[in-house]
């Protein structure tokens, strides 16, 4: 099992969720994060002082999937999330040892 962490543009969330649904991925966890890679900050102003918000808000999608599905999922996300502009985001693949379904106590890739 692998956890796929994708940090993406907020506006792309709907599209990605739809794309993931289409390839049969249902379990996802979403959280609000901020961050930067090579993207520049946004300049804002407040009562006469300008400043840079260099931590633009992003959405993080996490989904734990079967190891054999990793490539498909990554490709799907890349396709849906891509705008070809700086700030499109990053995806990380992280090993997962075990997954447990709370309701049943079952474990293994089948609970995903």
């Amino acid at each position, binding site marked *: 099992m692998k956890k796929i962490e994708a940090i993406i543009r907020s506006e792309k969330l709907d599209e990605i969720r739809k794309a993931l649904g289409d390839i049969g991925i249902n379990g996802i966890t979403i959280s609000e994060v901020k961050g930067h890679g090579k993207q520049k900050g946004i*300049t804002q*102003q407040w009562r006469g002082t300008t400043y840079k918000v260099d931590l633009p808000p992003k959405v993080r999608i996490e989904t734990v999937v079967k190891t054999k599905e990793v490539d498909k999922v990554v490709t799907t996300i890349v396709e849906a999330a891509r705008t070809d502009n700086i700030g499109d985001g990053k995806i990380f693949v992280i090993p997962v040892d075990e997954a447990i379904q709370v309701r049943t106590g079952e474990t293994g890739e089948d609970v995903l």
Partner: protein
Amino acid sequence: MKEYDKKQAILFAIIFALLLISPNISAEEEGPNVESNISAIDTVWTLIAAFMVFLMQAGFALLEAGFTRAKNAGNIMMKNMMDFSIGSIAYFIAGFGIMFGAGTAFFGTEYLMMDGVLNTTMWGTIPTYAFWIFQAVFAATAATIVSGAMAERTKFIGYLIYSFFISLLIYPMVGHWIWGGGWLTTGEVISFLADNPIIDFAGSTVVHSVGGWAALAGAIVIGPRIGRYGKDRQVNAIPGHSITFAILGVFLLWFGWFGFNAGSTVAGTNLDIATIAVTTNLAAAAGAIMAMTLTWIKFGKPDVGMTGNGIIAGLVAITAPCDVVSPVSAIMIGAIAGALVVYSVAFFDRLRIDDPVGAISAHGVCGAFGTLSAGLFAEAAYSGGVNGLFFGGGITQLLAQLIGVVSVFVFVFTAAFILFKVIDMTVGLRVSPEEELEGLDLGEHGMTAYPDFEHVYNPIRR
């Protein structure tokens, strides 16, 4: 006491008595008297009412901000500050003169920059300046209504230009027709109206319909928000970011409306103000109850935001007939308006005309209905003569009301449509899709309204 003295005394008493009986002569030179107190009472009343109507600006701002998304809240507060500010100046420069100045049947041509009005009065009792401020806050109300219908996508500069022209021209012209001695209350154009002038006591048409129909034109020209409508009649909800702000706005509007309607006597010595306060209150209450009940039936649960709209609807509708109908009729009128707004909101969504706060329905549709309702529910005991259709007056008055409603719709919709089109073709009316998605606070003002809070990306709701 000699005969001579006696004569003098008698003479004196007579003069004095006459003085008091025909009081108009006396006021200026005589020092305080009954008449000067009337002026004072009327002025105090008119000013306080004006201040209360001013506070409706805050109500409109909060209603609009609460009913829309957090990413646009700063822009919305800004628009509401600026439409009042720009409107005040525009109405000072020429708006008031176009509305109340003598001139043609269609617009007045006096009072440029309010020149020379110091120490003059209007309606005999109140200083012209007291009348001006009362009318200025009314003008600003008409202007600000549009803001809500075009929220979350209008370019700020375009909104400013619109604000200026509605306060300078569009609103004052309609005002002239109905309140300024223009053609809707004289026989100049349609002689029938000379005997049956349109009744619009506090402005269901003059203020609210003007705002509502301009909002309609604006919403059509600018188009719906991104994601608002899907395929096949699909309407997607875009919930507002703070129901607490929105309903606080409703309360402030309700409060200010007492000044709006009862204040429109511009005379505290006119005790009709008591009846007006009652009809105003009951119509709002009935509007709330009806909107709540209907949403409960239609959607399974009573809807908070729509109930707030029901209150506004009731208030808008009672604005025209507030001094010519009985309290019981006011309840009817409010209830009908409360129902109307629910269906009207759905209707405009069907037409894919996107109005984030329901301004077209609450102000345009219910303003028209309210104006007509004066022709239906007027009672001689309240109106001092006119009876509506339901009280044996036949359709005469209703017809007059209808003429008013239709002609104002045609004029305002057309004028506003042209205005928005011209703005669109010049400075631009709508922000870019990118800016709309990321929020107007950032795009128009380089800020965020609530930087200390974690925001949720709110996908469009289906």
